[in-house]
């Protein structure tokens, strides 16, 4: 992983959701879904993003694609600031950045034939004729392992794995450079999940795609990612190569997370790092380090001071006072 070229550069990105209430329905507080995230994504890599439910993984992905309005920070795509572009100008970049969604069924319009759904992309972004569009769609379908005759079918006529293939076809239709896979395989059965992961890998090799692979399944992430980002309550807590994260995790949260994964090896005695309590809700955000309420090694400092995002070794970042 030498001469990495940066595709996406994110600095101090913030995305807040307002919590409304009170007599006048004013904003009372904010859910800090993404809170001061800085990172770089390299061309052709797969960056896995892990963390527990509600930690802001999806929000981060959507914000990067301009589907969610950011509250602060900057996003550079191929060196260009795209964070504040108007809807119109953004269209050009939208072609270059696509998304694959978690629920393959929910992400397809149930009333639209698959062929038409795919064709629509070309209607929006190209001026191809009808027959040309059809041709492109046929090619796409075969590309993701579906058949041409699937063109006229409705989403409910497909199995979960097939639907996810359609989602992938949609994402690669315009030859993007970046694809955000938001829990793209989580809803699938293991056997199908393996099929899709393999397909994603094939496509990446073929088209030199960059993936942001969001998942809570650490096994899958390990399998597919080059680098891994660990998030907790809207904050990045650790970032490193897959190797660094899985074999040499620094942050106590990463460690706990890794130790909690049930291993398919019977009889293995677990050395689980037990965490106390549940995730605090994003709306009553803890002061200091967001993890201090559950952290086994928290100190007084952690309660007060937000830890810095430090590079511990080459490419291995962590936010913790105790390391």
């Amino acid at each position, binding site marked *: 992983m030498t001469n990495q070229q940066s595709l996406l550069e994110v600095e101090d990105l913030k995305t807040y959701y307002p919590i409304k209430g009170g007599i006048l329905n004013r904003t009372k507080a904010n859910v800090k879904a993404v809170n001061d995230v800085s990172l770089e994504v390299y061309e052709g890599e797969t960056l896995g993003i892990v963390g527990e439910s509600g930690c802001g993984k999806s929000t981060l992905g959507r914000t990067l694609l301009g589907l969610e309005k950011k509250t602060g920070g900057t996003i550079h795509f191929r060196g260009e600031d795209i964070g504040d572009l108007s809807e119109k100008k953004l269209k050009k970049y939208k072609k270059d950045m696509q998304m694959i969604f978690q629920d393959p069924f929910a992400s397809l319009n149930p009333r639209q034939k698959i062929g038409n759904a795919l064709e629509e992309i070309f209607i929006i972004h190209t001026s191809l004729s009808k027959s040309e569009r059809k041709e492109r769609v046929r090619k796409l379908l075969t590309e993701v392992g579906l058949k041409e005759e699937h063109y006229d079918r409705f989403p409910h006529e497909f199995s*979960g794995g097939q639907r996810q293939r359609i989602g992938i076809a949609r994402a690669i239709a315009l030859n993007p450079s970046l694809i955000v896979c938001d829990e793209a395989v989580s809803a699938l059965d293991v056997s199908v999940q*393996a099929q899709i992961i393999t397909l994603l890998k094939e496509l990446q090799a073929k088209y030199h795609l960059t993936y942001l692979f969001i998942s809570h399944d650490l096994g899958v992430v390990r399998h597919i990612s080059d680098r891994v980002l660990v998030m907790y309550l809207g904050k990045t807590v650790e970032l490193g190569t897959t190797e660094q994260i899985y074999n040499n995790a620094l942050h106590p949260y990463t460690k706990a997370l890794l130790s909690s994964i049930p*291993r*398919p090896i*019977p009889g293995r005695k677990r050395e689980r790092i*037990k965490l106390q309590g*549940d995730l605090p809700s994003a709306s009553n955000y803890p002061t200091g380090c967001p993890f201090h309420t559950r952290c086994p090694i928290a100190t007084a400092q952690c309660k007060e001071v937000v830890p810095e995002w430090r590079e511990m070794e080459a490419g291995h970042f962590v936010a913790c006072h105790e390391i």
Partner: protein
Amino acid sequence: MEHLLQVENLVIGFRTAKGTSQAVRDVSFSLEEGETLCIVGESGSGKSITSLSLLGLLPENGDIAKGSIRFKGEELVGKKEEALRKLRGNKISMIFQEPMTALNPVFTIGYQLQEPLIIHQNLSKQEARKRSMALLAEVGIPNPKEKLDQYPHELSGGMRQRVMIAMALACEPSLLIADEPTTALDVTIQAQILDLIDDLKEQLGMGVVFVTHDMGVVAEIADKVMVMYAGEVVETGDVKTIFEDPQHPYTKGLLAAVPNVDDETQELSIIPGSMPSVDDEIEGCRFHPRCPFAMDICKQKKPPVMNVSENHSSRCWLQEVNNHDKSTVTS
């Protein structure tokens, strides 16, 4: 010997708009006290339906068409609703997958916890309240007194699932059925819940039927494993055997398809295709369209359950070949 639970040749049919479909086909298994049986299989393989049938809680349009379910020797199939009701939540308890929806949103935690105590143990309201407070503490909920008066939506997912567990254990059942109790939870929370169930099982000596599709979870908690595919049991055995010496091609495929956190270089193997739906009638073995080892016989004749060894069986024609090989070797 009397088993805690013995299920024999269970067949469950559903009446649907298209006719009758069999969701569970000829399933048999047994469970002893203090033992954990994991039922694994992909979505739609009939895990939930099997476990629901144990309590007589099948959806309205579902029926046990054949087979028997014996709890401590007592036949449950065909038992009167009222008799079953007395068992439910008392001798046999159940925990469901979705802690979000499995609790009634309009009643307090306390009310829902006290219900089985009042129904089955005739406790007074105060006694029930005291007892439920203790139960909450037992499942590791801080401030149980306060939580009793809260509503489900005020609790996090992990807490809710703990409440469900407390509820299921209220009357100290001898059999606990857990249908994917941790699937909706985060891994760190899942770990806490799995530990909890394990501890309580030890304490109470219950038998546990645990439904999951996560092989990792199976490895962690199971004594015995039953692998289901498209309504049928394809392989059963104790946990070690299943993981270390799986016989059925499906089981093997399943294990190989799970990405391993600890293995960087693992090549994921693929089972092509996807599971048939319950009402697809397939000649021969239900797995043969996806089986890399399918032989002619597999397409024509349904394989019987074949014993691999004591406590290990597989529903696959390959077994016959193997057995045959073995027998020829030994003889």
